[in-house]
């Protein structure tokens, strides 16, 4: 299962943190710093997977943002790697060529996108068409 999802920029600022298991606020801060240290030191010669505590992180960099999903060791790496990409394509469509600032100013909407596609630490919906249709409908509501 997914333990947490993080979107961070290269400087270490968190643009989204979604937690699927309990951590105290201090623990969360520490994890965020560790993840940042862990992924920013990697480059093209490395895999998109890295052992992290007793989990692993599947991640991909898009422009200045690192999208990290922390999952169990026994989970399928490519499954989550493409789940990230699927999610990014939805964000891109929803925000019309998404950029980091979109995630800042519309932070509360990013959670809606996440909850459409992921829930309870599992993948909930994978059809971009369905997700975008639902999000568009929700955007029209008062």
């Amino acid at each position, binding site marked *: 299962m997914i333990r947490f999802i993080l979107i961070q920029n290269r400087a270490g600022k*968190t643009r989204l*943190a979604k937690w699927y298991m309990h951590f105290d606020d201090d623990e969360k*801060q520490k994890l965020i710093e560790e993840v940042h240290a862990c992924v920013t030191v990697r480059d093209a*010669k*490395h*895999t*998109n*997977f*890295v*052992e992290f505590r007793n989990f692993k992180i599947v991640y991909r960099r898009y422009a200045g943002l690192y999208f990290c999903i922390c999952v169990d060791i026994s989970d*399928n*790496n*490519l*499954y989550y*790697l*493409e*789940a990230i*990409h*699927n999610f990014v394509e939805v964000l891109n469509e929803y925000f019309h060529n998404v*950029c980091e*600032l*979109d995630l*800042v*100013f*519309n*932070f*509360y*909407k990013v*959670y*809606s996108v996440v*909850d459409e596609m992921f*829930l*309870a*630490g*599992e*993948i*909930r*919906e*994978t*059809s971009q*068409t*369905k997700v975008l249709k*639902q999000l568009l409908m*929700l*955007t*029209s*509501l*008062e």
Partner: protein
Amino acid sequence: MPAVKGDGMRGLAVFISDIRNCKSKEAELKRINKELANIRSKFKGDKTLDGYQKKKYVCKLLFIFLLGHDIDFGHMEAVNLLSSNKYTEKQIGYLFISVLINLNSELIKLIIQSIKNDLQSRNPVHVNLALQCIANIGSKDMCEAFNTDLPKLLVSGDTIDFVKQSAALCLLKLFRTSQDVLPPGEYASRIVHLLNDQHMGVVTAACSLIEALSKRWPEDYKGCVSLAISRLSRIVTATYTDLQDYTYYFVPAPWLSVKLLRLLQNYQPPEDPANKSRLLECLEGILNKAQEAPKSKKVQHSNAKNAVLFEAIALIIHMDSEPALLVRACNQLGAFLAHRETNLRYLALESMCLLATSEFSHEAVKKHQETIINSLKTERDVSVRQRAVDLLYAMCDRSNAAEIVSEMLIYLETADYSIREEMVLKVAILAEKYATDYTWYVDVILKLIRIAGDYVSEEVWYRVIQIVVNREDVQGYAAKTVFEALQVHIYCHLQHTS
């Protein structure tokens, strides 16, 4: 400033801009405190705030919290937002409490009551918000409050698709919190039947729930096996026009396929011939697709296809009953060992490690020895080299032990300090297990000590002594060799100090 969508909340956008324009941490803190004071006074004020304003201020508080500052008020107002009829106001209310929930708070009862109300709403969007909130929090209190209503909601014919999806995963969260939430009896067969739902999203969500429940109650949920196989079969043989919404870069329902393959690993291979042959056809189909020319050059296509392939191989390994498939899997992985993508080389090495332990595929794995040893020497990502080490260890037997141990010793000389202890242990185990000539064993251990002495744990060298003490035939050799090694060591030491 990027355009804010829909409802705007202009005040929020301005505040965020102000924060971003602050030139220092002090300026930022000042601006935040000013806003906190403002919000505090608005919340305490005589004028009752309308829904829009409450939403805006609660959202500002949430933003401030996410920046890293403590928020000790606003929870009541957030809970109030839950009773609004407006989606945008409810959404912010639920978001605030999901992020800032304090499970011991007095407000929990109010929150649960609000959720109960929304679960009974005629508006499925509101029901969905409530379900997402339960799934995000999933406390013990919530387990007690919702364990009777949720299963009913999940299996009812009146429940709309997207609500079912959320209900399934919501139940999964509660089940993980407290396993008594969903005793199998009443609901098992109806939950299993969700695998036949015409909405693929419902199947996707239900699959995760069933995977967890079937681990706990395999007998009660075993009906899922034939449904999962038939579902998988339909996906694997689908053309991409069949599954339009669920085709990703020309791969039909890759995530659902992986989930189904994962579910099947909770059970032994099916015994009845119909299911068995259908499953084997699926697995063969997946292996065939890996050999076909790719429909797209994009890495997303290959990753999605390979995600399914690797899970299929995991199932084949789990079944451990089809030699032909195991050998085919091994050959496919062998081809990946030299792939230009590091991800695939890594995953192939990892997967082959499991194949190496199966008697049906052990020999097939050994054929790739040279390539694997080459990986050990040339891979630039240390984690890939580590997988190569693990694989060499798993595939080691009497026929190749000498060569493998020798290569591992060479690797050890320049290995990362963080992995040395594990490597030393592996070499020591292999040397003992496959030694036919105990002089070889002594040589290996001596080399081990010379190269990575600091990482040779007590267990290892106690064992060496035990073996030498118990084998008269090697004692002479051992004594002589160690003596000579010490002489060299002392000589070197003298050289350095003179």
